[in-house]
């Protein structure tokens, strides 16, 4: 545990001093800031609708799906290519510790990006009645779903030694999860298949529930199990390399 924390600290330090991270943050704030500005004009200043619009629209999903692969693509693939991973392994740190530390660091950085948008809500709260409950549920969703996308990124990064291939693979995993929602058009309301699709649908969780202030236990349970499963697979992949 202690080793995992030390590794996490090292990962966080290297993430937050890296110029690439700050460039990602600046670009993220520019795009999402513009998105918030356009959204507030489009919804006529209605703050409840603004939340659904800014955290459920096309720009949001683009950023939500694209950034995790960019954040995680180098984490294991690059180290494997440079041979740094093998050096890490011989120090006695377990595979699981490496995977968990890499995933936690990328998830914390990813969540920090979204937290950096909160000052805009602070500005809005000066002139309107911002609901903290809705902001909380929305960020709970961002945390769980974003962490799951990061876990997929870590798995993809473990599967290949090339960062770009890892990013592509991770993006494919995430987009596949995202597209599941559209299978719902095949079923009628009330059918059990539709309920299962909604159970795993990131769009349903964010747009229909979390941005409207509904927190369902299914959201943390589903995405947590997905995180654990992806990290478990990533650990197995690393272990296989050790034996190869």
């Amino acid at each position, binding site marked *: 545990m202690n080793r995992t924390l030390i590794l996490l600290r090292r990962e966080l330090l290297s993430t937050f001093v890296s110029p690439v991270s700050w460039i990602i943050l600046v670009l993220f704030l520019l795009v999402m800031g513009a998105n918030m500005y356009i959204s507030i*004009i489009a919804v006529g200043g209605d703050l409840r609708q603004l939340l659904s619009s800014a955290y459920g629209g096309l720009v949001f999903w683009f950023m939500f799906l694209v950034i995790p692969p960019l954040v995680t693509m180098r984490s294991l693939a690059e180290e494997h290519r440079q041979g740094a991973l093998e050096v890490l392994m011989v120090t006695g740190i377990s595979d699981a510790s490496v995977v968990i530390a890499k995933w936690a660091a990328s998830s914390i950085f990813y969540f920090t990006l979204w937290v950096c948008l909160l000052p805009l809500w602070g500005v809005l709260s000066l002139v309107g009645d911002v609901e903290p409950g809705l902001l909380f549920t929305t960020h709970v969703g961002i945390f769980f779903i974003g962490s799951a996308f990061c876990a997929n990124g870590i798995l993809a990064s473990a599967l290949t030694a090339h960062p770009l291939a890892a990013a592509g693979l991770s993006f494919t995993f995430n987009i596949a999860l995202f597209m599941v929602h559209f299978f719902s058009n095949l079923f009628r*309301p009330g059918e059990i298949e539709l309920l299962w699709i909604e159970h795993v649908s990131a769009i349903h969780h964010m747009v229909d529930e979390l941005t409207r202030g509904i927190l369902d236990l299914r959201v943390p349970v589903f995405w947590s199990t997905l995180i*654990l499963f992806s990290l478990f697979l990533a650990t197995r992949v690393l272990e*296989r390399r050790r034996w190869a």
Partner: protein
Amino acid sequence: MSVLTERKNRARRHVPLQILLALWCVFVANAWVFHSSIRSDWTADGLLTVTDSDRELIKALTGPVEVVIPLNLGPEIEDTLKTRVLLKSARWLEELSQVAPNRLQRPILIRVNQEGEKWAAERARRVPALEETDVDRIHFFHDGRRVSLSSEELADFRIPSALEPEGVAEILVDRTREGIESALRRLIREDQALIRISQGSGEPGLKEAGNNSMAALRKDLESRGAQVEGIRLPFVESIPGDTDLLVVVAGGVGSWEPLGASVERSIQRYLDAGGGVVLLLPGKNISGLEGMLSRSGIDVGPGLVAEEIALEQGLVRPAFVAVGRQVHPRHPVTMPFLKRGLNARFSPARVLQLSEEATPLLTTGPGAWVERDGRMAQRDPGESPSPQVIAAASEVGGGRLIVVSSWTPVLNALWQGDSRRFLLSCFHWAAGETQPLGAGREPITRRVELSAPFRNSFFWTALAVLPACAFFGGLLVSALRRRNA
């Protein structure tokens, strides 16, 4: 075979099993939460909170209720507001369907102008059939029956006319939850509550447009599933036995005649037989029912309630207004208001004096006093301020009687806010319902005014200040890193 090779082979055999086990664990956890999930509502006004009464209603549905919402509204502001109400209703129905998806199915939303084929198929499938014009409504289907709701039944709108370009289109009263509740009740119950409202002594009419009528009250009650009729009290020998609630409006915009002794006797007989009566008192005259009220433990005091009303810039002005703030903590009428408080305005309002048989429902704050001359609201040294009772309830024989100190809140122009909510709760209890009725709510505005200065400052904060802060943060970190290196 070396130890290493043996370990490798063992690991190869174990890994697929471990992955299968992990998949099984993921499935079990999700299957458990799929069937026994917990949902919580984090909206400030409990917009999507499913109450115990909602759960009971859904569980009382005998079979699957299917809901179809065909939308074909145009781009006008009026259409936008109506679409918003219908979509909000769909959202609420989705939330309700979570309680028992096999009894209340999730709504089928069809955008008619985009999904023509789907709409045609839906129309062909439904019994009773849906017509092509049945759009922009919510249709509930259950056991060969259909109940439909329009957006006007779910909310009151204010649409500015062409003559008031500065006017803002808005939803005045949002009744989506109550309207849906009423529609579901109508689906499972054939009989409607019959509410009779006094007419014929100078009371405002029930159907006329304009401010001096009770049309908004009638519409509100009908949207909750009640049948509303007028009753000319001076001309009937007795109150019809099928009446669930009698509302006596003892006042009118013009002259109003106090009720006679025969009316008082017939109301007393109706109450003794288990009926429910809500009496709204006149501002000046006697109502003619004082004897009956006195026997029920309620006396109407002389004078009018006055209070100091806050004006802009911190000024106050005494006025003939009673603001009901304190509610009875255990009475079914007032229990729904305990948590969120009440600010129900009545003007002009009489003061009620109660004996033990009656229960005070609504009382003003401590700053109110009784202005005995009734001409000018100006507190004299002898008129000491204290909480004044402005609504009371009494159980007479088998019946229920509520007396409210003012009749004016039933007028179209004043049928809003907390006084409306309070009166609806009174009607519900007096009609014999034990579950307090939700009384609709004025939507809480969570809108910021998009003035030019606000737009400018938000634009620069979003697109310049925040990214610039991140940029300079990055430069600072980079500089520190170089110095340390």
